[in-house]
């Protein structure tokens, strides 16, 4: 609660320039960004499974079909490779498709198109063709669904050069970052933390105010330790910040917002200040992006590190079905414990 309100204050501040604002959920913020970009730019198209008449299984594209018609909001056949592959052609021929993969767990059939083509087209054609397209994917756990509906595969995207990867953690960022992603000239994979689609409302500027890609956000200032997180896990980091605060530990929370390109300066600045760091993600620990964060910190800030960078991650297992899901997901206590390890090292 307190975390929530103080966070929204933080945003209100960040976006003070951009009043008037309204209180939206993350899902509504994404919807508004899509709507505003489609109004602004006729070359923006939306395609995917159930994005039209149904308005998306999370109701994120609700109302777009009525507003823009079936030529700009396309319910596709059930085929992820087809969705991304057709988007490639649309983008190469001058459109700005925003493709939806219904759940990141169903990204796999699209991996050939995404990794072999979307990520490579500009380089392959030495700049003649580039693909200004966005692939939206709800990701992560917390909604108690069947198998394959809870996964976080960002690490796979990050070892594949050519894709920008953006992950908002709150409604205001969700809107501002998506605006930038749609206007961006490089392909962007835009990951939506589905567990917080409706978890809370926050002030979101009514106007279309893009938030630049590649810039992290200090969600909480602190001096003893840096907690690095993105997307859904920022909530856990903020809760840990509150809990640690009560123990007199001042934890800085760095919300990366963009995973590629990483905001290295913000990362180093924070850790050089605090001397301690932990990184939180839902994906399995092994070869997860937390490893890259730790590797970079020991590479570039070893002498500032008073303790090993701690990783709080999913287990190196399949994401469990709902009865065991709560055991898998990183939570406040695990973040707090990791921070303690850095303090007690």
């Amino acid at each position, binding site marked *: 609660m307190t975390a929530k309100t103080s966070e929204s204050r933080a945003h209100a501040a960040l976006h003070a320039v951009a009043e008037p604002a309204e209180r939206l959920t993350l899902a509504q913020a994404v919807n508004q960004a899509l709507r505003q970009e489609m109004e602004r730019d006729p070359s923006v198209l939306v395609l995917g*499974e*159930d994005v*039209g*008449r*149904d*308005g998306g*299984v999370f109701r994120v594209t609700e109302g777009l079909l009525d507003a823009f018609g079936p030529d700009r909001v396309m*319910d*596709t*056949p*059930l*085929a*992820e*490779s*087809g969705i991304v592959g057709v988007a490639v052609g649309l983008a190469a021929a001058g459109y700005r498709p925003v493709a939806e993969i219904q759940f990141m*767990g*169903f990204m*796999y*059939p699209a991996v050939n198109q995404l990794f072999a083509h979307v990520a490579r087209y500009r380089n392959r054609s030495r700049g003649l063709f580039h693909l200004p397209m966005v692939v939206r994917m709800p990701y992560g756990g917390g909604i*108690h*669904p*069947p*198998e*394959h*509906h809870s996964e976080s595969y960002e690490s796979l995207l990050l070892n594949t050069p050519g894709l920008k990867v953006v992950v908002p953690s709150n409604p205001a960022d969700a809107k501002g970052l998506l605006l930038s992603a749609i206007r961006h000239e490089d392909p962007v994979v835009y990951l939506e933390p589905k567990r917080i689609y409706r978890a809370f409302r926050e002030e979101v500027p009514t106007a279309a105010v893009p938030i630049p890609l590649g810039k992290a956000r200090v969600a909480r200032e602190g001096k003893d330790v840096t907690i690095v997180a993105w997307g859904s896990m920022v909530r856990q980091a903020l809760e840990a910040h509150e809990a640690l605060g009560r123990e007199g530990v001042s934890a800085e929370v760095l919300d990366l917002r963009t995973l590629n390109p990483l905001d290295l300066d913000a990362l180093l600045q924070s850790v050089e200040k605090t001397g301690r760091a932990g990184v939180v993600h839902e994906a399995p*620990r*092994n070869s997860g992006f937390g490893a890259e964060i730790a590797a970079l910190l020991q590479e570039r800030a070893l002498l500032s590190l008073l303790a090993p960078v701690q990783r709080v991650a999913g*287990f*190196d*297992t*399949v994401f*469990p*079905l*709902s*009865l*065991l*899901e709560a*055991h*898998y997901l990183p939570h406040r*206590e*695990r973040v707090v414990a990791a921070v303690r390890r850095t303090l007690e090292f």
Partner: protein
Amino acid sequence: MPKRTIYEAVTERLEILDKDGKADKALVPRLSDEQFRTLYRNMVWMRRFDEKALNLQRQGRLGTYGSLRGQEAAQAGLALAMEDGDWMVPSFREHGIMMLRGIPGHLIYAFWKGDERGSRFPEGTRCLPPAIPVGSQLLHAVGVGLALKLRGEDSVAVGFAGDGASSEGDFHEALNFAGVFRPKTVFYIQNNQWAISVPFKQQTAAGSIAQRAHGYGIPGIQVDGNDVLACYAAAKEALERARSGEGATLIEAHTYRMENHTTADDAKKYRPPEELEYWSQRDPVARMRVFLQSRKLWSEAEEASFLEEASARVDRDVEALEAMPAPHPSEIFDHMYSELPWNLVEQREALLNEVGR
């Protein structure tokens, strides 16, 4: 004639019961009265099982659930045609036939409750765990069918998928591999007209899924999926073909999803009520009842006792479900590999310390 024909074939549809349950005598399969009764009873049982699941879900005793209402004939007809040693390679809406093939109902409920133990079927049931990534499992059905052929086994693998799944690349690869390797496989596609909110006519411009078979050199047939006799007959023929080593068949069971896609869905947003009306008039259970009546194989009294029996079985499933102890947290780790690697040992330890074993 300027162009020369290099391929000519037709796609057929089989119907035995008309929409009101009147049978085309010539086509009625030679089954015993008891078998006719069984077909009907099994559908009644499935429907009970399904209604109970929807109930449990509403009460928060199950998670998201996918109803099979409307597809009872498609599953009961096939079930009667299959042999004991045959394999099932299901998608996620096959719980009706899974029960008929010996998978305990409480395990099926457990699956929908979010418990992996629900997919550990009794030894020998020869049913692979339900596959969620649509279409992908059809390739497994080809692999199993190929194994059966290589071992000279007398069994067949039945692979299931939906109309939406037929748009995935794996559908194509599976049918093409099947044409080339001639496995002991039957592809059983339940075309229930909808893939969540996408109607079949937006799923493909082909008028049927059955006609896809022309692209793979295997036989394909559409069957009235709400006609349990037709489903039985078409399945029987395809299973025999596979069993005798003549290769795979594509069966499209043309049916209808009477419920929401799952309990997380609201079909009212996208589905015209007239359509539901139209299909309600073709209800598979009602049609078979008319057939039984026409053969004097049905009575109020029997109906009542089926229902009671079915309800009792389903209640026992619920009891068994709720008698299952909560899964132990270590289950997250214990089935990943043949032995626990160091990282899982550590992570398992950490979790057990956290939850206090």
